[in-house]
């Protein structure tokens, strides 16, 4: 089947998560993405098990999923012959993607100024920490940058510690943003023939992630910077409530029709008649009392019982699931947001995060999990770059390739 990005070749000189996941989005839709790694140990993401950076299963799910559908070349970029390989690859590629430091790239002769001479049509995409301009010069990781945005301090109950939005939550938006930027630059190149330098930083992407509330703060609503208790929400009908066996997210507008419908689902008739709650304005004024009253009612039944009562009444709500529930959710499987694929490392099928963007005629696909280190070095040297087998042998002897 045809793929949307057939014919696009990407040099993916990235490590960890933010850079690799940008390449993953392109590879899922058929771009030929070549993950270029150092011969000794490869991408740091291969080593997460040893350094206990995060929990890893019996297969390295961290590295293998974000580098799926890619090829791997192991090249020693400290050697001139290694740099020459990369320069030849640049001449044959559409995109150069990296999240390495500018110092590293400069010392290996991989700056934009050097590469655009080799290939003026090259899209040179950086995934930096803090953007191409300005004065900040310090290491960036997902969470240290998320810390600066203000996002972490505004969620959860007042007085509780800040909350990290999940492992890789910032890298995920940074990488996706870079993938979008690359397609913009490729589109522009189609008309002008020219490539360009682009950057999608962790800081910029995570400020975008904060848009729902940061935009309100910028407009002068300071409360958006602070934690807000579920006991005093803006809208008591859109709030989390504890049931007898879990939690439920009630998602209704605070209008009188919704209120009457909701009251109709309760056995307790007092609340429907309670004058403190009979208009939207009063429900706002007496929000704490209302949440307390709803807590008292909703905790008496199970989540399933409420869902069964509410669904036919058109009351919009959802059980608050955990990750196990998600793994069993047919909606996630039918849309291929979760897929099963073969894992060489453990010689069995495994479940992986699937394809979040659905294209009807040229869908993304998970064909292979991440490659072995240097799995495609020789193939690309010979087939794409025209090296002879003798030359490949020499490069190996010099230590320029694995």
């Amino acid at each position, binding site marked *: 089947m045809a793929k949307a990005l057939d014919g696009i070749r990407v040099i993916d000189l990235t490590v960890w998560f933010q850079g690799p996941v940008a390449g993953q989005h392109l590879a899922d839709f058929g771009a030929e993405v070549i993950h270029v790694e150092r011969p000794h140990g490869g991408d740091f993401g291969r080593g997460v098990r040893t350094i206990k950076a995060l929990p890893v299963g019996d297969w390295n799910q961290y590295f293998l999923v974000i580098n799926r559908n890619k090829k791997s070349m192991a090249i020693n970029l400290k050697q001139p012959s290694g740099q020459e390989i990369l320069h030849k690859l640049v001449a044959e590629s559409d995109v150069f993607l990296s999240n390495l430091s500018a110092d590293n790239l400069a010392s290996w002769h991989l700056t934009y100024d050097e590469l655009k001479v080799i290939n003026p049509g090259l899209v040179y995409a950086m995934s930096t920490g803090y953007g191409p301009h300005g004065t900040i010069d310090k290491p960036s990781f997902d969470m240290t940058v998320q810390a600066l945005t203000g996002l972490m301090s505004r969620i959860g109950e007042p007085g509780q510690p800040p*909350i*990290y939005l999940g492992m890789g939550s910032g890298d995920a938006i940074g990488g996706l943003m870079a993938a979008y930027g690359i397609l913009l630059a490729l589109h522009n190149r189609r008309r002008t023939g020219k490539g360009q330098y682009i950057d999608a930083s962790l800081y910029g992407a995570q400020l975008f992630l904060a848009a729902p509330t940061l935009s309100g703060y910028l407009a002068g609503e300071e409360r958006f910077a602070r934690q807000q208790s579920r006991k005093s929400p803006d809208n008591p009908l859109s709030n989390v409530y504890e049931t007898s066996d879990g939690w439920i997210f009630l*998602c209704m507008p605070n209008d009188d029709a919704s209120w009457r419908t909701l009251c109709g689902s309760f056995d307790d008739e007092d609340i429907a008649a309670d004058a403190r709650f009979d208009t939207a304005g009063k429900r706002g004024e007496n929000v704490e009392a209302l949440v307390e009253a709803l807590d008292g009612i909703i905790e008496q039944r199970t989540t399933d019982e409420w869902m069964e009562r509410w669904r036919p009444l058109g009351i919009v709500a959802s059980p608050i699931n955990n*990750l196990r529930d998600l793994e069993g959710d047919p*909606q996630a499987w039918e849309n291929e947001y979760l897929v099963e694929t073969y894992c060489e490392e453990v010689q069995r099928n495994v479940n992986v995060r699937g394809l979040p963007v659905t294209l009807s005629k040229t869908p993304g696909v998970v064909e292979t999990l991440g490659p072995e280190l240097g799995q495609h070095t020789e193939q690309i040297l010979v087939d794409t770059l025209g090296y002879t087998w003798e030359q490949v042998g020499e490069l190996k002897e010099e230590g320029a390739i694995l």
Partner: protein
Amino acid sequence: MTSALDGLIVIDATSEFFSSLGVALLADFGADVIRIDNGERRLSADYHDRLANRNKRSVSLDLGLDAGRAALRDMVAKSDVFVTDAGLSTLAERGLDYATLSAAEPDLIYARASGFGPKGPDNDLPPLDELAAARTGMMPILPQPGQPPVYPQIGGMYTAVMLAFGVMTALHHREETGEGQEVDVSLLAGNMYGASLDLQAYLAIGGERFLHPVSRMDAGNPMSGTLYMTSDGLWVTLTMPDTDRWWPDLSEIVGLGVGDSRFNSHELRCEVNRLELIDELAKAFEREPADHWRKTFTERQMSADIIERYDFPVQDKQAYDNRYILEADGGAPKTLGFPIFMAETPAEMKRAAPRIGEHTDEVLSDLLGLTEDQIAEAARS
């Protein structure tokens, strides 16, 4: 200066913040985005409207009327991309489903921002981020143990970028082959993508550990992903997964000996004496204020920082130098800028969010060649 998407015509029939913002990502880079507005209030918050509808034109059409729907179909026929976040049944009723629109225009890119995707039993649930976040499985594990589940309110932002990315992917294919298609991006997919690593770790490892919150005093690696309070009540976070690399610096700044026999290997720090190290670090960070720690981290180029509030980026020069936040302009407040830098075709603020129907006459006459009488018939006055 030219823009990356000059000449691309997009019909934007969205009505939610996240989906309108996804289309704004196309407009910021030069697409001619024409909003279809219904003569009602657009987004419930003005600050959302300003951000999500900037750089767009607005046409007021009553889609309840045959003439309004006909004008919309004619506009779509002159366009490259149609974006909607309406339900499948509503779209079918109005003759705005993919089958109808693509019959007249096979190369159309038809994008739908949905709640739960194009297939499955819940493919017509409303596009509410709260519902999707609840389904994703992260809400129970974000807070400290014993706390209520947390709604992070960010899933729609992943979906917004996925929308722009999906449209561009389909456009690339169309430029190569002439073939249009449907694109669907959902809030469920966006929330799941944002949860990538926790979700993938659960899928690979299973068990109970990803189903319940973990206390900050029980972190798997005391030096990575951890939170410590400072003497002035702020919080420090460390991201030093490779503890061998960072231990010499960290041990020194917190006053533990680099050779402290309790902690002088990765194994001791992350396994044997993990809880003791967390405890020592918690005590050490509480001895000095946040300013002291930031200065120290910066001097030593350490991967650690202070957890700020929104006042920080709003006064951070870095955010303005990179146009992530734009200065107040002529009475309009500060606003979020552009997360992607393009050297040759930068995003631009060409026009503020339009009044509803501000460009009705202009667009209907330019794009469709309608006369004044025909326009009056199609548009709600």
